């Protein structure tokens, strides 16, 4: 974490890489709704066409949540590309969202 990433080695920076995300929410609480919206917006903006988002309601499937080691909601898990990253919160802070999931804003040079 402490070492800066080399400029051309941003994880997922290659434009053909597929992103597999999962968001764990609780029912349709306002926080959950906000998190889903914020995540979708960021993905559309920066990962257009190469991402998929699974939505898991931990209230409906608590065992899945337990198996996936989810304690807080909403939680976004970046399953691919590796390594796994977890982002907890309603993602209202878009900067933290990008940093947390290690998404290189598309505007930045590779």
């Amino acid at each position, binding site marked *: 974490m402490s070492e800066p990433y080399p400029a051309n080695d941003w994880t997922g920076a290659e434009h053909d890489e597929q992103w597999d995300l999962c968001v764990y929410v609780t029912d349709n609480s306002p926080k959950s709704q906000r998190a889903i919206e914020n995540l979708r917006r960021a993905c559309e903006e920066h990962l257009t066409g190469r991402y998929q988002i699974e939505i898991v309601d931990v209230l409906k499937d608590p065992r899945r949540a337990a198996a996936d080691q989810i304690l*807080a909601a909403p939680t976004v898990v970046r399953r691919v590309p590796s390594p796994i990253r977890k982002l*907890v919160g309603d993602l209202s802070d878009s900067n933290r969202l990008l940093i947390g999931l290690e998404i290189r804003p598309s505007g930045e040079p590779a």
Partner: protein
Amino acid sequence: MESTILTTLTDQPVGPTLDKTPTGISGLDQITGGGLPRGRVTLVAGSAGAGKTLLGLNFLVAGAREYDEPGVLMTFEESADKVASNVRSLGFDLDELQRKGMLVVLAFRVDPSEITAAGDFDLEPIFAILADAIERVGAKRVVLDTIEVIFGAFGDDTIVRSELIRLVRWLDDRGITAVLIGERGNRGGDSLTRHGIEEYVTDCVIVLDHRVTAEISTRRLRVVKYRGSAHGTNEYPFLISARGFTVLPITSVALDYAASEDRVSTGIPRLDHMLGGGMFRGSTLMVSGTAGTGKTSVGAHMVNSACARGEHALMVLLEESPEQVLRNMQSLGLDLRPWVEAGLLRIWAARPSAFGLETHLAILAGLIEEEKPSVAVLDGIASLSNTTLDAEVTSSVARQIDLLKTRGITSVITALGQGEDVSTVSVSAMVDTWLQLRNIEANGERNRLLFVLKSRGTSHSNQVREFVLTDHGVELVDVYIGAAGVLAGSARVTQQAAERDEELRIAEELARRRRELHRSVIEREAHIVATQDQLDAERTEINRIDLREGHLVADIEADRSTMAARRWADASPHNGETL
């Protein structure tokens, strides 16, 4: 009518009595008067390695095994496999309990480095996962280990704190008896846990402590708070052993032991006699003395006679190895080995420096639990003081005595101590009988004397006895008090010989006198016989004389008549007429 109301009033306890959930940790249930508050949340706080997790697991396993109360463990510390393997050596088979549907283990690995906080969140998944697990097995008990891990993991402690308070309420509402495990902060201060809030929302707070003094570790437990219930407030030592988590409520020095009138033989007949017929059952006898005075042999005698009666006995040795003691006692004609082989005698030996005082106590409690002895010997308690302060030793010995007394075990404790030194005296207040063995040196030899310094509730002998170790056990022999003081050993033997001579002389003298008198009696009897013969002869003579006299008179009368007739006397001379 009024009386009925009064009766009902007095019969009803004031307010609802607090329901308790046994933890299955016997000492802890004793301190808390039955266990943790049922349907409430208890905080167990302690530093790393203090045994918090084990307490929680013991609570769950006991619930599942003994009280038919399934449980859920949610751990943030280790993987499920690791938790299971850690406690397998204690006989807790978590996998089996899970298969039987009595336990759910939920393990979470929380790695703050892979989590980023980004906005508002809650811990609703914990609630959902717990709710599901509780429902799955019908759980009555829940353990969360360790809540500190959640703090810091999500960046925002304010949210975590309020969510944990909500979790406590949520568990309370469900009637779940829960244990929240918290890490004790190393910042010190008032707070029991690092984040210091849980203790205000939970009903019961237990603090575990792990201290190292003089290179010996001691674990202690304290019930800091128990809302609505009386509880022991002391620090109680506890032990993590092969039997799991054991708390020792030994400071329950309540002085309410049943006093038995039964006497138990010490195995030394003359000692029994000195104590008025033996020790009272359940009482404690202390033998103090310097090294080599034969203290252990008193205990060995006691054990030997208990085993001979078919009772179980326990010997705790702090100075020697079992083999050493068995050999030494054999030289006194006390063969304890058969009792060991028959399973009647359990000998446990350990250097006091191997364990702390509390651990030692815990082991004793465990041994008593296992063996259920009627008689116990603690040999060499004073050597405990090699490692710690005297006051601590005294307190520890007091607890050991208390432990033995509450179990009704007749016990002999031996203590190294010259005279009536301070530590022995402070312990002596707690024992019922105090024997002292003292070496006296005289005539180039050492001899042992036995004093009964005190014996509660018995009219005991206040005499000193010589304590002799023979090849057929201990013998108590009368001592001689001479001009030079107490005589023992060869001085006593010399004195005994002198007395035997004197006795012999007196006996001979008496025999001679008897012979004399006998002779005299015979003589006098012979004399009496002779005198009697003479008397008889004289009486016969008198009779004969009387007879003779009668004849003589008659003859004279007859002669006179004949002569008168011959002289023609006309008048009787009795008529007064002249002849």
